[in-house]
């Protein structure tokens, strides 16, 4: 027995050693960020989530990049640009010191190749739609045009790039900051295919290179010394941890193991009231909204009066104060407050404010006085406690004010997505996070042909006005057009019922971490973030020395 026990003990020790010894001795990074769920990819042409995008934009830069304070576009790989008078032709001048992390220069042809890659049908990028503003971009991406030379991007010489748009787009420079427009290494991708991110040495065009990447653990970034602005990169090594459990996130933050938590999904919902009192808990408005899609292909929702009646009895204040509790602003339109229209701030329409009497009148006009004859309808949401609570509130409001019978239907994530795209719902909980700082990122969803419309609503007038707005270069005129389109959406037709605008919630101590600035997009470029002081002594007992 004794011998066996000793053997078992030996085995256990060997295992413990293996658990840790397999890893190179671990050293804490200069900055540790809990980033949220594991990134699906680090390929700028494939990622879709904001958390993934934050890492990707540190690795791969485009012609412009975000100003850390305002999230406005500022020069990136391009040091300057000229815009033609009609707003359709951009000429970008690349920096002479723009280089890959392996030392080769980044030239205009690299940009052309990168944009060609994301536009290629074989890449099948979910995000390719943001390149449809390029001349013939859509035709090439959908396979209708085979000749890439007809797409509006061309290298005039090694340092000059000519970009032609279908029509003027006030937000094009903003788009150029965004990861689908990033420059990726042709050499690596042609040679290694889907596995190009694992090839070493890593070829980065941004401020960081990829040091290591272990799924569900962390992405470790290391400063790219050949980045053109490397002198201003603040942290040498950054760890971005993956995690999805709010309680663990809070514990990691409080124990000093991580410096920043910046995913609102990682805030324990029951503790929000308490957390709001902490100086290191930050709530900021974000470019996202929460709304209900209405399936207008089904009676009785094919009648706009019914849809208006539904929105007029929703007590949004109750939802944000009792359920979400993060200081979300109630929404009567789809464009978040503060969103830009060129250099101006966009003024959205007022929308339909609560008016239960008018709602009852509308419902009666539609043939359902006091809800009589109105079929039982379902409200569909994806599995999450807050969505369920909101559904319960809505059912109560619609029942009490309009006499409607509403059943709640909970679906698991993928089934919920499929139900929306198949129009297999009556009313469904939805949300959207903007891709760029312009109302169009929310409004173009509801264009007739947009695959993300998912309401069955088609309105030629809406399509036409929005197209006009996007071709307009005069901000005042554009404001009018955008507002006219949004008025159709949120005051007359209501294929969607806006509920509230999201906020972002972040943990970080401004006394110890610098470089994070509140801005409408919650863009926090990693290159400017720095931990200035360690946690107070004794607060981090678990640090492991190499």
């Amino acid at each position, binding site marked *: 027995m004794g011998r066996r026990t000793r053997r078992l003990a030996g085995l256990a020790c060997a295992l*413990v050693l293996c*658990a840790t010894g397999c890893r190179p001795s671990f050293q804490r990074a200069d900055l540790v960020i809990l980033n949220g769920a594991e990134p699906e990819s680090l390929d700028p042409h494939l990622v879709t989530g904001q958390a993934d995008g934050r890492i990707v934009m540190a690795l791969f830069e485009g012609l412009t990049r975000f100003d850390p304070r305002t999230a406005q576009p500022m020069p990136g790989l391009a040091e300057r640009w000229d815009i033609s008078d009609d707003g359709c032709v951009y000429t970008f001048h690349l920096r002479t010191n723009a280089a890959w992390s392996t030392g080769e220069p980044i030239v205009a042809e690299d940009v052309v190749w990168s944009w060609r890659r994301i536009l290629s049908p074989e890449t*099948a990028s*979910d995000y390719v739609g943001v390149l449809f503003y390029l001349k013939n971009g859509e035709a090439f*991406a959908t396979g209708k045009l085979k000749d890439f030379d007809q797409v509006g991007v061309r290298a005039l010489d090694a340092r000059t790039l000519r970009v032609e748009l279908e029509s003027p787009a006030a937000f094009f420079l903003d788009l150029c900051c965004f990861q689908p427009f990033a420059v990726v290494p042709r050499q690596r991708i042609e040679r290694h295919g889907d596995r190009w991110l694992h090839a070493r040495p890593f070829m980065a065009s941004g401020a960081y290179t990829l040091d290591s990447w272990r799924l569900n653990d962390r992405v470790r970034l290391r400063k790219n010394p050949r980045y053109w602005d490397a002198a201003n990169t603040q942290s040498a090594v950054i760890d971005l941890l993956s995690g999805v*459990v709010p309680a663990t996130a809070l514990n990691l933050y409080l*124990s000093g193991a991580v410096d920043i938590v910046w995913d609102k999904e990682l805030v324990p919902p029951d503790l929000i009231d308490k957390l709001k009192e902490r100086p290191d808990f930050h709530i900021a408005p974000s470019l996202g909204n929460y709304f209900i899609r209405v399936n207008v292909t089904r009676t009785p929702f094919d009648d706009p009066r019914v849809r208006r009646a539904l929105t007029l009895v929703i007590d949004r204040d109750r939802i944000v104060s009792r359920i979400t509790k993060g200081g979300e602003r109630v929404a009567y339109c789809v464009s978040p407050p503060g969103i830009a229209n060129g250099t101006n701030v966009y003024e959205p329409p007022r929308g339909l404010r609560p008016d239960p009497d008018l709602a009852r009148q509308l419902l009666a006009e539609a043939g359902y006085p006091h809800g009589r004859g109105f079929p039982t309808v379902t409200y569909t949401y994806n599995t999450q406690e807050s969505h369920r609570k909101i559904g319960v509130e809505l059912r109560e409001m619609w029942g009490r004010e309009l006499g409607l019978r509403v059943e709640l239907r909970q679906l698991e994530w993928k089934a919920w997505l499929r139900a929306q795209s198949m129009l297999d719902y009556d009313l469904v909980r939805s949300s959207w996070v903007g891709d760029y700082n312009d109302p169009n990122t929310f409004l173009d969803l509801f264009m007739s042909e947009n695959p993300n419309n998912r309401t069955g609503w088609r309105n030629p007038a809406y399509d036409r006005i929005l197209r006009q707005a996007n071709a307009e270069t005069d901000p005042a005129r554009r404001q009018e057009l955008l507002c006219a389109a949004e008025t159709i959406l949120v005051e007359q037709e209501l294929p969607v019922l806006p509920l509230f605008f999201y906020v972002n919630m972040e943990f970080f101590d401004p006394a110890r971490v610098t470089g994070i600035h509140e801005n409408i997009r919650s863009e926090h470029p990693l290159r400017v973030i720095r931990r200035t002081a360690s946690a107070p002594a004794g607060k981090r007992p*678990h640090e492991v020395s190499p």
Partner: protein
Amino acid sequence: MKYLLKRLVLLPPLLLVISFLAFVLVRLAPGGPFDRERKPASPEIERALLARYHLDEPVARQYVRFLAGLVRGDFGASLKYRNHTVSDIIAQGLPVSLTLGMLAFGFSMGLGIPAGFYGALRRGQWREHGVALLTLLAVCVPSFVVGPVLVMLLAVKWSVFPVALWESPLHVVLPTASLGVYFAGKVARLMREGMVQTLRLEFIQTARAKGLSETAVLLRHALRLAVVPVVSYSGPLLADLLTGSFVIENLFQIPGIGVFMVNSSLSRDYPMVVGLVLLYAILLLLLNLIVDLAYHLLDPRVRHE
């Protein structure tokens, strides 16, 4: 030997059936891997995406393609983590889950066997009731409660261990205990039952009558037979532990494959689901085989049958 061969020969067809079921069932679930909140900008792009991963082909054809890949040892690419293959993900996560699983196994055996043994010897005394109460607690309280309680006390309050992550030997302790405590309780109960049954058998009385010391009776004769229920339980237990735990890995942010076991089906990551089901099936079948062989070594009656 013949028995062993028969079992081994049965393995491949069994795995084939399992893989086929997994392959088809996961495709029956509503929604697909590329249903996302943000759909591609046009139906053509969505079609290109499906074509790229051959998801536009009939299921039978896809299955043949999958088998052809399997022959080359290729499970295919993950559809959610598109820069990783299924083999990459298993290669990254499995060693972590194996380590944690083996440690938790050691923990539950090391705690459960002595506890059950002790409980059986002290029948009717308060000490037996004490052990019974503890094991009952261990079995009844789920790991998603044990884990947070341990973290609360040992990591947050007293700062003895780190709250989460997988970085150093210290980081291993809490997840091991949280994962192992339930199984320790289970093993203790099985062990106690086995011991009580064994001590009633005639050969124990014979051994005592021969004048053997009580220690020799208990350790050399009784223990060997009493441990059989624990051994038969340890096969599926090991398969469970080695393939990771969704709850514990999530809670402690451990990069094992337990999380993928659940999430891959939620995200309809078809190749990942099939790969993991196969991995789990192989482990389960092999471990059960080993357990059956262990009976032969432990119980002379089985040997003679």
